[in-house]
């Protein structure tokens, strides 16, 4: 039964994991996402669904526990925040290389280094351009609400298993810590499906299953890379998700994702109130990025402002999409600072309209 609740973003992620029929969660505390594992430990899903929850000795161990469980064909999840996600990058590269499904949440905080515990979007590059070693991609979902945090856990597992690929939910300290009304989907049953690629114990009459990301022969490794690339092209074709606000007649376009898109929407409304025909484009998938849609909108507007809580990362993808058709500028606050609608509107007026 669907259920309405007032929930904190991080707790909603945890509840969604239980409801999505996750088999296991392995995590390690880090601000601002510790509520995920705290909620799971409190909720004791072993009793509700049989889901296993374990506090690992490190983020490194946690992602490798995810690897082990995922390679058994189970729905495994971990979460962390920026410094911890850096530690998980080794494991993520192996998971992508071995083509295993899992969901990884990054409740982003400001960096580099230990940085700050305040919200940021400065892990965009790490999430969408790789992060770990080798040619691989994470499917990256960027929730802007607590509701989307919940929905993207469910969608994340679906996509992870559809493509046998790690999925990252790129949340941030705002979405993780804020409370909102959320509609929870019904409890899903944990799957008992045995996948032919999973290590479940060698069955009579079949070869043993080997889960590995190692190919010592370059010819074989190139085949792996080609297979991965073919898969990524499929993902790019099928899984682009975005929302538009007031774009139909827009002359100026804001592009923003996650929590920053909520603030930018306010700036867009203020612009409209001033008679500036502004629209907002919000990618929900950061990989695959909605290049085509942004390109189409670029033909209609006079300029684009990419608003981010970082020093200018997504703006590079916007420029790729726009391909020089119109001016593209970046406006950002960072280090844990959150831009105000006023300064976003001011940036539009100065950098784009007056620029």
């Amino acid at each position, binding site marked *: 039964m669907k259920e309405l609740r007032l929930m904190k973003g991080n707790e909603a992620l945890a509840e969604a994991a239980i409801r999505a029929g996750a*088999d*296991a969660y*392995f995590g390690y505390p880090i601000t601002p996402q510790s509520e995920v594992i705290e909620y799971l430990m409190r909720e004791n899903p072993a009793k509700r669904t049989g889901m*296993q929850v*374990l506090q*690992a*000795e*490190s983020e*490194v*161990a*946690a992602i*490798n*526990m*995810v*690897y*082990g*469980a*995922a*390679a*058994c064909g*189970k729905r*495994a999840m971990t979460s962390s925040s920026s410094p911890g996600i850096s530690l998980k990058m*080794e*494991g993520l590269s*192996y998971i992508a290389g*071995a083509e295993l499904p899992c969901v990884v949440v990054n409740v982003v905080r400001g960096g580099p280094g230990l940085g700050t515990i305040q919200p940021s979007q400065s892990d965009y590059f790490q999430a969408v351009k790789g992060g770990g070693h080798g040619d691989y991609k994470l499917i990256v979902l960027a929730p802007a609400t607590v509701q989307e945090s919940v929905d993207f856990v469910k969608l994340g597992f679906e996509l992870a298993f559809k493509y046998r690929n790690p999925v990252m939910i790129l949340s941030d300290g705002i979405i993780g810590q804020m409370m909102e009304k959320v509609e929870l989907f019904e409890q899903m049953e944990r799957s008992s499906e045995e996948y032919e690629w999973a*290590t*479940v*114990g*060698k*069955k*009579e009459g079949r070869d*043993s*299953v*080997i*889960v*590995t*990301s*190692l190919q*010592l022969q370059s010819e074989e490794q190139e085949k792996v890379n080609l297979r991965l690339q073919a898969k990524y092209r499929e993902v790019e074709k099928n899984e682009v998700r975005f929302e538009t606000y007031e774009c139909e007649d827009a002359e100026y376009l804001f592009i923003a994702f996650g929590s920053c898109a909520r603030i930018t929407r306010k700036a867009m409304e203020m612009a409209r109130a001033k008679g500036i025909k502004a629209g907002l484009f919000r990618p929900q998938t950061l990989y695959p990025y909605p290049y085509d849609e942004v390109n189409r909108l670029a033909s209609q507007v006079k300029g684009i402002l990419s608003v981010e809580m970082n020093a200018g990362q997504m703006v590079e993808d916007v420029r790729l999409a726009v391909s020089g058709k119109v001016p593209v500028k970046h406006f950002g606050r960072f280090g844990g600072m959150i831009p105000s609608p006023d300064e976003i509107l001011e940036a539009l007026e100065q950098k784009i309209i007056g620029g």
Partner: protein
Amino acid sequence: MSEKSIISPENLVYEKTGVMTDKVLHYCPGCGHGTAHRILAEAIDELGIQGDTIGVAPVGCSVLAYYYFDVDMQEAAHGRAPAVATGIKRVMPEKYVFTYQGDGDLAAIGTAETIHACNRGENILVVFINNGIYGMTGGQMAPTTLPGMKSSTSPFGRDVSTMGNPLKITELVAQLPGTYFVTRQSVHVPANVRKAKRAIKKALEYQKLNRGTCFVEIVSNCPYGWKMTPVESNKWMEENMFPFYPLGDIKVPEK
């Protein structure tokens, strides 16, 4: 009776177990890895658990162990095998789960994963091959390299004042409440191979009891890394490795 007549199925007393594949092992001549693989495979065979076993291979010489065991296997990142095995065992508690790791993997880069899996008492078997050297990368110093022992990164012998001391991680994990059975064995002579196999078999049987981690160290040779013939390396191992890493049970289940 002619000798030929002895070679017949009813007289068969020893053959390669079916739990090992027919792939030719890539290990150097005389390397203990092959024997250690074989007795682990034989133990799985004799317990009839081939279909219920999931193994985890390390990074190091035995990185390709999954080619030789005819059981479902996963390849872990360097040192992470105990974490990977934890993930497997937590979602497949009814399966027999083992890791097979060398000294660099288990006692250097993977020390945290090893100690914490043992400390949690994960119901897994850890097979630890200790030959005091990094074989795959070409004979560099390992966490278990003996004082004074030469390697390509301790070319004048391990100087413990600057390079640190060899780590007796097996004694260390035996101190943890999570371990159930901890033993140190070798596989260089027939009697010791038989003992090591009994230890591995016992460890797998204990896994059913859910009493904690079983940890079987096998002190082994590295003819190539030690720059010796296989026979010389086994002798050197007896004279130098065994005094520092004495064989025998370190922690046995309480009766």
